[in-house]
């Protein structure tokens, strides 16, 4: 509860801070202060059972360790994101305070989406996440691509929202006593009516759209490419992770018992997502677009958690979101400060900016899933989750072959940085920026050696 209220309030504070001061740095410091407050408040809720606000939500929201740990990850990543890319947010346009305000509203949506207990709250959470994002995507008004991406995102996003609402309606109609509560929807193994299955599939499709799983991924490359790069970073990491958490909570609680009925659909979605994401990423000429496709490919791996719905998968998803978000935020933070977003732009980076190149290598290795990085254990948990079920082994083999393909495009960046010569370029990298990148790389390495430090937090009992 702390997180939802404080993030909403801080969003309003940010809006007014724009009125009170025209100094961009002040606004940024207020935002960083807010996110630290949010992070601590969430941790207090988690560790000490000290919600500042006790509001009777009539079971519409459900607080437990899992959503709160995820919130901590999301806010921790946002803090990292603000520290690394805060100055770049200032560069996007004039209304800096509004960008920060919108990000705080998204964070409010993240908290709702991770702790919903009824389909209505799910809808509300997803919408509170989406609408500010439409604006952020189009925030660079002078750039035609940004405006186009925003409109495209808005149209496609509203369409999928419609599908989600229709699905919710069907489910409401199909349950005998008419309920939105996700734990009551579950049929406990009983026969599912066609109406119920239709509702389930519509929900599956709309969630797949939001996490950009194939074949509902078409908006992703254009939107990620068109949006200002700093906001792409936010969308591709924290937002995507939050939708995944909503996804797994929904399916865990509502549809777990009838897993066998929808598993085949999600298997097909996973196979398509891995195939299209990885194969298309190979052919990209721009690193930014490559990262968009790579985020699709990574989503394919995260979907394994939803396919299996077991403990390993659920724990692994948290690890995955953490490892993936930190690595991607790091790569984007470097990318934002480069003028040339093509692969050639990275040529010879190691010679002129060794720290940037070294940390970027760690991030890329993590995305590729090489041991000693968090990305390895993230993928390991996902694979272990499927192998534990004893089914869909073909999908596991297919997934690792796709992971091998991903080496190609991640290593292209490494090759450009280390083994090709390029013009020295001006990249604004103050000491603080480099120190933060090193910290992010260390987080990745620690997750890669001792993943249980994160996983064990799930065992903290929630009072």
């Amino acid at each position, binding site marked *: 509860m702390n997180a939802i209220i404080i993030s909403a309030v801080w969003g309003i504070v940010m809006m007014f801070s724009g009125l009170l001061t025209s100094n961009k740095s002040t606004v940024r410091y207020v935002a960083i202060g807010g996110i630290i407050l949010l992070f601590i408040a969430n941790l207090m809720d988690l560790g000490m059972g000290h919600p500042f606000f006790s509001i009777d939500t009539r079971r519409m929201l459900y607080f437990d360790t899992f959503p709160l740990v995820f919130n901590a990850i999301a806010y921790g990543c946002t803090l990292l994101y603000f520290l690394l890319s805060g100055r770049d947010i200032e560069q996007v346009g004039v209304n800096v305070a509004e960008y920060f305000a919108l990000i705080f509203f998204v964070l409010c949506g993240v908290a709702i989406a991770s702790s919903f207990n009824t389909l209505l709250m799910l809808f509300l959470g997803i919408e509170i996440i989406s609408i500010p994002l439409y604006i952020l995507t189009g925030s660079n008004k002078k750039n035609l691509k940004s405006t186009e991406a925003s409109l495209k995102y808005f149209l496609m996003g509203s369409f999928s929202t419609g599908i989600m609402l229709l699905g919710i309606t069907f489910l409401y109609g199909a349950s005998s006593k008419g309920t939105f509560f996700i734990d009551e929807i579950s049929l406990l193994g009983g026969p599912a009516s066609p109406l119920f299955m239709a509702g389930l599939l519509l929900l599956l499709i709309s969630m797949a759209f939001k996490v950009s799983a194939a074949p509902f991924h078409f908006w992703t490359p254009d939107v990620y490419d068109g949006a200002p790069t700093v906001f792409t970073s936010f969308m591709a990491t924290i937002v995507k992770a939050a939708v995944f958490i909503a996804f797994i909570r929904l399916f865990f609680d509502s549809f777990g018992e009838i897993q066998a009925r929808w598993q085949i659909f999600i298997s097909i979605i996973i196979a398509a997502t891995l195939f299209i994401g990885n194969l298309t990423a190979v052919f990209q000429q721009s690193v930014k677009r490559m990262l968009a496709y790579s985020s699709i490919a990574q989503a394919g791996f995260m979907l394994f958690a939803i396919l299996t719905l077991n403990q390993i998968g659920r724990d692994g998803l948290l690890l995955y979101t953490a490892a993936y978000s930190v690595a991607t935020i790091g790569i984007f933070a470097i990318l934002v400060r480069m003028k040339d977003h093509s692969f050639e732009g990275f040529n010879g980076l190691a010679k002129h900016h060794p720290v940037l190149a070294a940390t970027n290598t760690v991030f890329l290795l993590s995305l590729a899933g*090489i041991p000693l990085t968090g990305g390895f254990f993230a993928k390991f948990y996902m694979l272990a989750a499927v192998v534990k079920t004893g089914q869909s082994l073909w999908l596991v083999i297919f997934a*690792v*072959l796709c992971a*091998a393909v991903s*080496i190609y495009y991640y290593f292209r960046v490494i090759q450009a940085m280390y083994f090709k010569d390029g013009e020295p370029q001006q990249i604004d990298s103050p000491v603080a920026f480099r120190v933060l990148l090193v910290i992010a790389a260390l987080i990745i390495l620690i997750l890669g050696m001792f993943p*249980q430090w994160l996983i064990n937090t799930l065992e903290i009992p929630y009072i």
Partner: protein
Amino acid sequence: MIPVLLIVIPLVCGLAGFFIKSSRSARDWSLIASIMTMVVSLAGLVIHPNAASLVFDAEWLPALGSSFSVGLDGLGQILTLLTAVSFPLIFTATYRTEYKNANNFYALMLLSQAGLMGVFVANDALLFYFFWELALIPVYFLCSNWGGEKRVQATFKFFIYTFVGSLLMLVGIIYLSQHTADHGFSLKSFTDLNQRIPAQDQTWLFWLFFIAFAIKMPLFPFHTWQPDTYEQSPSATTMVLSGIMVKMGLFGILRWLAPVLSTGTWIWGDTASALCIIGMIYASLMAIKQDDLKRLVAYSSIAHIGLMCLAIFATTQAGMQGVMIQMFNHGINIIGLWIVVDLIERQFHTRKISELGGLAQKAPALAIGLVLVALANLALPLTNAFVGEFLMFSGVYGSAATKYNVVFTVTAGLSIILSAVYTLNMIQKVFYGKTNALTAKGRDIFFHEKMILALVVLVILVMGVYPKPVMDLTRGTVDLILTKMNFKL
């Protein structure tokens, strides 16, 4: 404690090496570090085989059933010894090579040594996988940064190949760990798996592991990365790759495949052996046609590794002993060959056999060194390889695991004849005959280079005359592997 030191010394020294500015001190630093590792490794040999200092256990990932568990048995001893001895040899032999950013080069070399050591001492499947991949990353950077003209593409091919193999193995490891009694990754629970996994599952699980190991060795038809990579890598890295890294594949079969999925190994034994034989003949024929010294040695290595793999699948006491001895000997011999090739290349800036000739007149010491190493490569009696190859051949011939033991022995024997063809041909064309414009200006090698070659030759002769210590060292492991392998469902 010894296995931990074997990993930690090169790891820490390697990481520290990145921060040494002067290239001379980086070179000396890495040489000292590698000698320290060698001393530790030799100390491990002297200690009683059951001493507690040869194993180390620490908690790592209790939730997953994996622990940081390392230990040295006979097999681990022989391969860590090879790794520990090779690196000082390599560093001294290439002492005069100047590298750009030498500190990074030497640091990465030491890191790859740490990874290799980890592979050979790991007693936990997940830890094994960790090191298996970690040994690869420094080598990737070494080859791509300091190699020849087409280095980036060649290394990338190598990396993708091995990574595909590793990922398949990872799936296999996860699958097996879910079926162990304690849902863990320890070597002990893995070797008890054979009874728990039905034969029909073992038939496909075998390939998940075997492909990974076959790519690393490499076996036909997974070998296409190897000649390109050897050719394009800097000499020091080629020595690591061919002397030690290929042993990872053989080691993998001996530790994580044959004793674990023994029924699967038995079912596919003939198929694997046939691949080995095809590879041996094919690689030998290819070696005859090569004009580039590095490619010639590369193909010759495929043929030798093929024989070792064949001997593993023969499942006999003699064959397995031969493999153990030959893994060490092959490492020493091929590093010796590379040293010679490197000395030639540094002096004449070419590796083409057709452009060289008459070197023996100008560089007699080099010629003597090469001839002795080459004879060892041919497995002539009195050289180390003779012992190993003789044991392996008698093992294959006496194998009860296959109906085709005679066919295998005879066709594998052909490759020995072919290896005489290409090796002697190479000696003749490079060292004898008339000198040409290029080689007329040649000089003999320096004193420290002579010493290195003499050392290699000494090891070759000592191991050829008195192989008993190695046999004694590995007997226990051989018996253990054979007991596990002979238990079929």
